[in-house]
């Protein structure tokens, strides 16, 4: 008994020293400041970002910048865990849907105003629609990202399809089916189950405005859902898209499908920001999306490529905002960063890169055409991860042929209502 007591005491003492050491370090504030930046991406983003950080430290020797970077997989989980544990970086790159999801759970991001950063550099609507929560500006958009429809001109031509076709929902089927008719292992669309969900969301947006509206209500009727599922059933039946049994393995990474890489699939929905990665070694160009007559909303998404936020727990918020200001508006930083985060969202960013000749014509065309076609922003409810999962689950069952269009529509509405009631 005594032994256990002594043991516990030792343990507690030891724990005490551990925590004491922790707080001592936190108290150290004067002198040089160390700021941590975290982001996800590939080398094409890591290298320029590190270079821009180095340049900032060279000009501001009292500020040391440390990068914490890696791939996309697990990044969100890491960030949320760090925020919860109070160990998140000072400056964090987040994806747009997370802003509302995280801000709704507490005061996690610092508020940014015009005295800290020249906000006139940004499109006011863009800041208001995508970077603001509860009336407060919580982050800055790195670039403008839009949906785009990438097509392999050469492959289309070789199957007797005019690559300059202006795509409609109908001719995707009437023209697109030529591919699978001639080659059973080739398809018009490279869509994996998650990409099929995006197509479904676009179709429903055009029919009904949205899947879930800003009032947390399902925005489409059962008949409209059935209509959409009936349309996409033809994609499967007429060989527009490969069966889910072949593509489900590439959930959230359709570009890794060997059929896609080897040019057995001709087109895909994607984001301009990930277009280069998706196209890989292939030769492709971009097109606009089909829009039905009388569409309520094109469903084509436009949003910031990423958002940079300042951790509200940061001990050096003012310094962190200065770094943001540098990364977003300083010509030197903009030159170093180049297209690491897509075409910049700032006026000065775009003019700097244009002067350098750094913006590729393909990215510029895709962005401009996407902005021209962009629909309304999705509601935060539609972007909620549980809502997305509900949609995905029904689309999976439908795609595997377990549900008829009418059943899928009914089940989707029922499950959406159930999950929306808990949000």
């Amino acid at each position, binding site marked *: 008994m005594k032994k256990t007591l002594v043991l516990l005491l030792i343990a507690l003492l030891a724990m005490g020293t551990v925590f004491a050491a922790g707080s001592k370090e936190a108290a150290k504030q004067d002198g040089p400041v160390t700021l941590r930046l975290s982001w996800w991406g590939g080398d094409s983003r890591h290298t320029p970002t590190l270079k821009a950080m180095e340049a900032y430290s060279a000009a501001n020797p009292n500020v040391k910048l440390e990068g914490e970077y890696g791939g996309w997989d697990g990044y969100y989980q890491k960030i949320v865990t760090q925020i919860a544990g109070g160990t998140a970086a000072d400056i964090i790159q987040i994806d747009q849907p997370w802003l509302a999801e995280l801000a709704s759970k507490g005061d996690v991001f610092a508020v940014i105003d015009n005295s800290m950063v020249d906000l006139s550099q940004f499109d006011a609507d863009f800041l208001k629609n995508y970077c603001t929560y509860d009336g407060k500006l919580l982050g800055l958009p790195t670039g403008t990202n839009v949906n785009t429809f990438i097509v392999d001109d050469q492959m289309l031509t070789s199957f007797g399809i005019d690559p300059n076709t202006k795509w409609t929902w109908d001719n995707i089927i009437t023209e697109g089916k030529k591919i699978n008719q001639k080659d059973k292992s080739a398809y018009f669309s490279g869509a994996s189950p998650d990409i099929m969900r995006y197509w479904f969301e676009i179709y429903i947006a055009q029919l009904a405005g949205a899947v879930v509206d800003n009032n947390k209500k399902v925005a489409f009727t059962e008949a409209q859902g059935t209509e959409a599922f009936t349309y996409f059933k033809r994609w499967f039946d007429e060989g527009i898209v490969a069966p889910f049994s072949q593509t489900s393995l590439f959930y959230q990474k359709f570009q890794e499908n060997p059929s896609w890489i080897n040019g057995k699939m001709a087109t895909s929905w994607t984001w301009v920001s990930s277009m280069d990665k998706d196209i890989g070694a292939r030769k492709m160009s971009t097109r606009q999306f089909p829009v039905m007559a009388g569409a309520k909303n094109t469903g084509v998404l436009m949003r910031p490529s990423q958002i940079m936020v300042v951790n509200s727990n940061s001990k050096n918020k003012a310094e962190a905002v200065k770094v943001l200001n540098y990364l977003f508006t300083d010509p030197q930083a903009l030159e170093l960063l180049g297209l690491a985060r897509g075409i910049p969202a700032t006026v000065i960013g775009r003019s700097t890169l244009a002067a350098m000749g750094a913006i590729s014509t393909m990215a510029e065309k895709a962005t401009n055409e996407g902005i021209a076609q962009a629909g309304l922003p999705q509601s935060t409810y539609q972007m909620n991860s549980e809502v997305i*999962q509900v949609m995905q689950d029904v689309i999976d069952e439908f795609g595997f042929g377990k549900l008829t269009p009418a059943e899928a529509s009914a089940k989707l509405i029922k499950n959406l209502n159930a999950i929306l009631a808990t949000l």
Partner: protein
Amino acid sequence: MKKGNEMLTRKRYTYIGYLYILPWIIGFLVLQLAPLINSFWYSFTNFQLLGDPKFLGLDNYKKIFTNDPTFLQSLKVTSYYVLIAVPLKLGFALLIAIILNQNIKGINFFRTLYYIPSILGGSVAISVLWKYLFMNQGIVNNLLSVVGIPATDWLGDPRYALGTISLVTVWQFGSSMLLFLAGLKQIPVSQYEAARIDGAGRLRIFAQITIPELSPIILFNLIMQMINAFQDFTSAFVITQGGPLKSTYLYGLMLYDQGFKFFKMGYSSALSWILFVIILFFTSLTFRSSESWVHYGDSL
């Protein structure tokens, strides 16, 4: 006086002993016990990782048992997985152990060789490799097509995906095999000789000497592998992400999704405690049953 001194020394030694294991004790208290207690408390709340948890009573548990079809699906998948992977793995491990128990030249090389998958096994890289072996245009289908067997969606067809994933686990038979091998070495040769002289055939020797003599090790392997299989996560997460149609949606994946994808830590904690009870139940059941089939040499 002398005795007192001895006591003191012994006491001192005990303290020094504890001092040595202090790093482990601290690790256990801070990294295991504290989270364990915490998660029990969270399981009665709506803890969301950020913000303060609100006490919900038994709501999480009620929802799991009455209103969560994914829970049932995941439980079903996990049970199948345990039923497929554990017996296959143990059987395979035993078979290889018996083969490697022969006195052949260079046997140590083969023993090392067969242990390698276990060193690599749990890693993400192996899961990725598995994906490329078994995908529609993967190596397995290519090899099969040589013999004229049509391509199968090993990982894309809900009927086969779980079995294919289980193979990853079975393939990591090394640690069980090593234990079996050590056990086989313990069996006195005299028993085999006696049996052979009495005219027992190979199968009979296997069934009546090898298996009973190995039974304590079989029990240990069975329990450890069962616990591991119930908690498995990596291969299903990396290869199929629980799909197609949630056919590989192991319990560990569901825990992860609820906790780290939807940030419902309270709900996820409740699910963990249910898994804990399930594992506890099957472990004690196995222990109970062992009385009738495990033979300990010294009790003979």
